[in-house]
C-alpha cells in the first residue's frame, strides 16, 4: 500500500480548496472540521497590527535618516556661508580647546601639531570639525 496516494488525495483537497468559490468557502466557516470566525478575525487583527508596526518602524527609521541628513546639510551650509576669517577661526579653536573636559585628547594633539605646522586649510578643516562636534557654536552674525 502506498502513502503517495494518500498524499495525492491531500493535494487534491488543497487544490480544490484554492479553486472553490469564495461564497462556498465562507459558507463553511464555523462548521465542524473547518476554520472558525474566531480564527479568521484573529488573523485579520494580526495582519493589521503587524503591518501597522512595520510601517511605524519604517517611518521612525526614515525620520531619523531625514534629521541626520538635515543636520549634516545645516553644518555644511554654515561652513560654506561663514564670513569668518582664518584668524577668527583660529581664535574660536583656541577658546574651544580651553574646555579640556569636552575636547577629546586626540583632537588636542592634532591641534598642537596643526598649530605649529598647519596652514590655512588645516585650520579651516579643524574649525569645521569642531563645529560638527558642537564645540564651536555658530551665530547668525557669522553667516
Amino acid at each position, binding site marked *: 500500500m502506498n502513502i503517495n*496516494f*494518500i498524499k495525492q488525495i*491531500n493535494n487534491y483537497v*488543497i487544490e480544490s480548496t484554492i479553486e472553490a468559490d469564495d461564497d462556498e468557502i465562507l459558507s463553511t466557516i464555523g462548521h465542524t472540521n*473547518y476554520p472558525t470566525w474566531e*480564527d479568521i478575525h*484573529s488573523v485579520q487583527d494580526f495582519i*493589521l497590527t503587524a*503591518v501597522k508596526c*512595520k510601517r511605524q518602524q519604517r517611518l521612525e527609521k526614515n525620520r531619523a535618516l531625514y534629521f541626520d541628513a538635515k543636520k549634516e546639510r545645516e553644518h555644511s551650509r554654515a561652513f560654506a556661508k561663514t564670513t569668518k576669517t582664518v584668524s577668527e577661526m583660529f581664535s574660536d579653536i583656541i577658546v574651544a580647546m580651553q574646555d579640556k573636559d569636552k575636547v577629546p585628547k586626540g583632537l588636542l594633539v592634532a591641534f598642537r601639531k596643526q598649530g605649529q605646522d598647519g596652514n590655512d586649510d588645516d585650520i579651516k578643516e579643524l574649525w569645521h570639525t569642531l563645529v560638527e562636534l558642537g564645540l564651536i557654536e555658530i551665530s547668525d552674525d557669522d553667516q
Partner: protein
Amino acid sequence: MDTDSYYSEIEVEENLESLTQADIARLVQIFAVLGSSNRAGMSGHDVLHNAISQVLANERPWPKDVSVISYLTQSGRSTISNEEEKRSKLLIAPTIDEVVFNEDNKVAHTSAVVRFSNPSPQSGLESAQSSSIIKEWIEKVRQLFGEDKEASCFIEQKIAEQKKSKILIICEFSDQIYRNVEKRIKDKVRKRFPNGLPWGEIES
C-alpha cells in the same frame, strides 16, 4: 533586490492587507491538511501568523508571479516541516539526565542511549499498523466513488501510481474527460475530508 521581479516591502504589506476572509479561511484549512496539528502541534491560524511574520520580515523575496495564497502556503509548509523536525529531535534525543558515564568516562549502554542509537524494537509493529491505516483510508476513498465508474477507474490507476498517459489509455479517457473526472474527485474529497487524510500520523 530586483524590484521588477520581486515585491517591495510596501507591496508585500499591501498584498497581506488585501487578503480576504475567504483567503484566510482557505489558508487555515490548507495548513490543517498539511498537518499543522498532528505534525507540528500548531493550529492552522498559528501557522498562518508565523508565515505572515516571516513574509513581513522579508526572509525570502516574494516573486511577483507567485500568488499570495501560493506564497503563504509555501511559507506555512516550511514552518510545519521545521516544527516537525524540532519535535522529532526532542522525542529521540536522550536528555543529559538519561546519559550515564562509566568509570572510564565512556557512555554507558543505558536504555536511553540504546534507544537513541538503534531502531525501536516496536518499529515492526508500528509499520504493520501504518500499513493497516493506509489500507483503511484507501478503502474509504474507494467507497466514496463506488457509484462513479470513471472516477473509480481513475482512483485505481492512481493507487497503482500510473501516470496520466497510462490512465488515458486504461480508462479510455480523452484529455477533457480526464480533467472533468479529476475535478470531480478533487471537489468530492475536499467535501468528505476537509482536513485531508492524516498521513502525518502514519510512519513511512
